[in-house]
């Protein structure tokens, strides 16, 4: 009975029973269409382009009224095709937000803020998870010659043990640089020659040197990876990056949209980069380089503030260290788009405590795979490790070759059932972040008659929000509109003192600036103040 009630509650909450597994592209498309059709006043869905694999790049716009006139947050999932959680966080956020759209708090939020949700920037690559051969793929369906030898896809992975997954391969070798983990012999770790350690294994990805060029799996169905294809510090010529930045349709579709979306003040992306668990520290030397390499100081402070908010709301701890690879969305969002930019993997394997009942001890050597296996066992997750098994390998005819290891995807994507809680936490974060957005107001409006037909008009322009109207870097970019204060007079009025149009680069959080004019004439005058990233306020006055 209780269970039925619970299920009924779920049906009511979700519209349907929650799935037990990540959605493939067709299912994602279904979820997006369902959401848009059921909520036409709040949600619009459009396709920005189709990838070379023929898949739509969807954009959900969530908001009310003229969404393009409200400060906006862009939420980007699927920045890496192997990160299914990211697409789930983006779509789940949209679903959760809409679910709460009858509450006053969400109504108020959507009256002031627009969300642009890009649920999946890597739909081609993501489908590898659902295909017969699973391996962590980030590249799209564009044909690439990864080793640049003039031949396409001549040496990809090979499923030697026929289990439908590409795992690891270890080769016993006197020149091997890997050894067994002292606490878990299933796991291989690098031997440290400086400590006199000697390795026993070569550790490779499962496969054969199909083209006999001495390199293993160096040119499979590579494709271009979205999170390497953006413009900041692009690794031109590196596998998966593209021959030049923004070479891919999906990359350009997103950039074209966002560069015209002057109302976007923050970009939140889900992927391997992380400046939410630990903010990017201010580095005065990097911040002065001609090709800017570090956050400007005020922007680093914003990162710190938003990171605190993220950690408080999500309660996520012990995140792996952030590594920026170049060409990534996190860096692009700040360094090239000049908006506040944040990224998080959304989840990582929690640090597993030793089970004293089983006489486990803390690991003598920290290793993500060893930690995962311990954590998975405690969670009752099984079948994610393939025991090492000897195979006959044509490239190593006289050596012992074994295939095994942990499954692809498991280190960065939690079991699906855990995503419900993660979506909720990240929805909370995205809602609370909007609560900090810059908001323009006009206070202390005064009209003083100086003489017949001569009036002094003055007011204070205020930013009530927790964020500045523009990032510090955004003040330098012409893809952000200035904060404009414009006086609209009729032909019988004349501005004697003060500027008809004032353009400000920015207004800091919780700060104000005074304006005054001397206007000759009578009748109505209207003053418009604001900018797309902070909203526009209009006041009408009588002289």
């Amino acid at each position, binding site marked *: 009975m209780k269970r039925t009630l619970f299920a009924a509650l779920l049906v009511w909450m979700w519209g349907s029973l929650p799935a037990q597994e990540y959605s493939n592209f067709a299912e994602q498309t279904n979820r997006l269409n369902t959401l848009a059709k059921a909520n036409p006043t709040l949600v619009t869905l459009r396709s920005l382009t189709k990838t070379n694999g023929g898949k739509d790049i969807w954009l959900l716009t969530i908001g009310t009224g003229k969404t393009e006139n409200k400060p906006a947050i862009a939420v980007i999932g699927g920045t890496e095709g192997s990160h299914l959680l990211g697409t789930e966080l983006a779509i789940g956020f949209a679903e959760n937000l809409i679910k709460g759209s009858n509450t006053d708090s969400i109504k108020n939020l959507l009256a002031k803020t627009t969300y642009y949700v890009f649920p999946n920037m890597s739909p081609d690559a993501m489908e590898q998870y659902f295909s017969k051969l699973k391996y962590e793929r980030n590249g799209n369906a564009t044909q690439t*010659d990864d*080793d*640049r*030898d*003039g031949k396409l896809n001549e040496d990809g992975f090979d499923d030697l043990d026929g289990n439908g997954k590409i795992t690891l391969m270890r080769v016993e070798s006197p020149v091997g640089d890997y050894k067994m983990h002292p606490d878990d012999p299933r796991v291989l770790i690098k031997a440290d020659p400086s400590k006199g350690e000697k390795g026993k294994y070569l550790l490779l990805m499962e496969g054969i040197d199909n*083209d*006999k*060029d001495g390199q293993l799996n160096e040119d499979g169905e590579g494709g271009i990876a979205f999170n390497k294809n953006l*413009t900041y510090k692009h690794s*031109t*010529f590196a596998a998966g990056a593209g*021959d*030049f*930045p*923004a*070479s891919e349709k999906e990359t*350009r579709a997103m*950039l*074209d949209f966002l*560069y015209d979306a*002057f109302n976007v003040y923050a970009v939140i992306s889900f992927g391997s980069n992380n400046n939410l668990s630990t903010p990017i520290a201010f580095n005065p030397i990097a911040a002065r380089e*001609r*090709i*800017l390499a570090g956050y400007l100081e005020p922007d680093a402070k914003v990162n710190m503030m938003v990171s605190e908010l993220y950690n408080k709301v999500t309660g996520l701890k012990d995140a792996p260290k952030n590594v920026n690879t170049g060409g990534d969305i996190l860096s692009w969002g700040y*360094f*090239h788009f*000049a908006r506040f930019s944040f990224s998080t993997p959304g989840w990582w394997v929690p640090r597993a405590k030793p089970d004293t009942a089983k006489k486990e001890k803390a690991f003598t050597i920290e290793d993500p795979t060893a930690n995962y296996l311990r954590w998975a066992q405690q969670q009752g997750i099984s079948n994610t490790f393939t025991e090492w098994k000897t195979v006959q390998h044509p490239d190593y005819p006289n050596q012992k070759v074994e295939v095994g290891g942990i499954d692809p995807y498991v280190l960065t994507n939690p079991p699906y059932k855990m995503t419900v809680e993660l979506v909720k936490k990240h929805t909370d974060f995205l809602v609370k972040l909007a609560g900090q957005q810059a908001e323009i107001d006009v206070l202390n409006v005064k009209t003083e008659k100086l003489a017949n037909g001569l009036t002094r008009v003055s007011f204070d322009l205020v930013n009530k929000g927790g964020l500045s109207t523009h990032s510090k*870097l955004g003040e*330098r*970019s*012409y*893809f*952000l*509109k*200035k904060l*404009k204060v414009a006086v609209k007079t009729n032909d019988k009025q004349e501005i004697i003192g003060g*500027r*008809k*149009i004032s*353009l400000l680069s920015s207004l800091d959080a919780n700060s104000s600036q005074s304006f005054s004019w001397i206007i000759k004439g009578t009748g109505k005058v209207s003053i418009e103040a604001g900018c*797309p990233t902070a909203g526009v306020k209009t006041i009408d006055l009588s002289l």
Partner: protein
Amino acid sequence: MKLTIQIAIASVGLWMGTSAMAQTPEQMFKAAGSPVNPKVTVTWNRYYDHAGLGEICRKIAAAHPNLAKFESIGKSYEGRDLWCLTITDFKKGDPARKPGMYIDGNIHSNEIQGAEFALYTAWYLTESFDDTKFIQELLEDKVFYVIPTINPDGRDSYIHKPNNPNSPRSGMLPVDNDGDGLIDEDTYEDLDHDGNITLMRRKSPNGRFKIDPKDPRNMVQVGPDEKGEYELLGTEGLDKDGDGRVGEDGYHFQYDPNRDWGWGWQPNYIQNGAYKYPFSLPENRAVMEFVMKHPNIAAAQSFHNAGGMILRGPGGQEDVNTYNAADLQVYDAIGKKGEEFLPGYKYLVVYKDLYSAYGGELDWFYAGRGIYTYSNELWTPYLMFMKEGSRDPFDNPTYSFDRYLLFQDAFVPWKEYNHPQFGKIEIGGFKKNFTRAHPGFLLESDAHRNMAFSIYHCYSTPKLEVQDIVEKDLGDGLKEVTAVIANQRMMPTHSSQDAKNKIERPDYISLTTSGKILSGMTVENRDLNLTTEQKNNPQTIEVPNIPGMGAVTVKWIVQGGGKYTVNVDSKKGGIVIGSK
């Protein structure tokens, strides 16, 4: 198809008719180095708008069907075609497999003569083919891709709308320059309606300018202790949006098409003029796609103005090491030869001799695609009196050149105007067609010289030959077959930047024989027999490069055999075959 040919024949007949009406062949005497009675008559002492250029391209292709093909490689923002002439001897070899020379002009809207210079090259090659053995050989070996203007919207706007010599630099894609949310709300204004945006001056007791005693049209700054008579109020315009600035948001400088390319690209806060991302402008995107589809392009030239420069990259100091020593040898040899051809032009490096510029076309061609590329800044004041002059447009040589050689045709005389914001002012100054564009009588000669530079550049692209095939009997029915593949020109098949990053695939040297190929190897030292075996697919040996003015040696071990054919297949070096 038939219809096209008929039209073509009819058109050729029409021009021949026209030229016959003007002059008969007997009445003409050939001047050395110029076609005496060209099939397509072009007047080279004037400029053509986009439609005019297209018309000339079409005529060249129709008159020389075996030497020229005409196509559009894409559309501009406003929908104009980007016209391309492919010039080669179509009767000999596959054009797509000949080493290619890419030439474009006019990437900056106001830098118009690049289009005429590029087109002159196409015209000259086709019209001189019959008379000139050198050109016959050149077009047998090489292919030219000539795109006179890669910015046709900007070109037409420069020609047909009010402008000054410096405007517009942009194409026509609208941009909100001042970030006020409005687009092009305060552009230049041609107050005197003469098609030229000139200068505004006003008599003022506190002005810091006076009339130049040597030429009253010129304004000169007074000394620090001197009283002036005039103030300069900038270029012709109004404050249309009432923001206290004159002409601050027009279409003239909204972005720079030469900061939009896919190497070292930087956003606009670092590199002024950059747009959204590399190739975010449709014209450049079309060029990029064309270049990617033509891996045979080994050399490239873009024409700009002004200043008399043969420029190479890098545009940014960060790329100093990208332009490595091996490639600089080639660059320097060609660039210095160019200085000899081009009086008043200097061979210079962008980042240190001009200014720092990220995302430029020449950097993408070289660093992104491995193509040796120059940008020439056409026109130099040197050409006025054949001596070094000042580059300041207000300098007197400019005025005296206009006075004595152009008879004051290049100047709009000062005249009074009643300005709504400035009151009584005067408007005048040089027309848009002078100070950066060539005056008519110097256009053809400088176009010819710059073409000669391109031809030398193109001539220097790889020319491969199977120099030698030697068979040696190893006994037991085994033969060793050694082949030497030579490159007779200065450029390697892979620039060093190309080889380092494997931009283009290796060159393939394959052996065809009736025998069985047991092994293939590259030979590092033939005398000492130092070799490296290629175990996979020994029939086709892959070599990373065939050096300029050098050779590579390969050998095979063959069982049986007899007749040997060696085929060399190089993306930038072309295809050659040798047999023994």
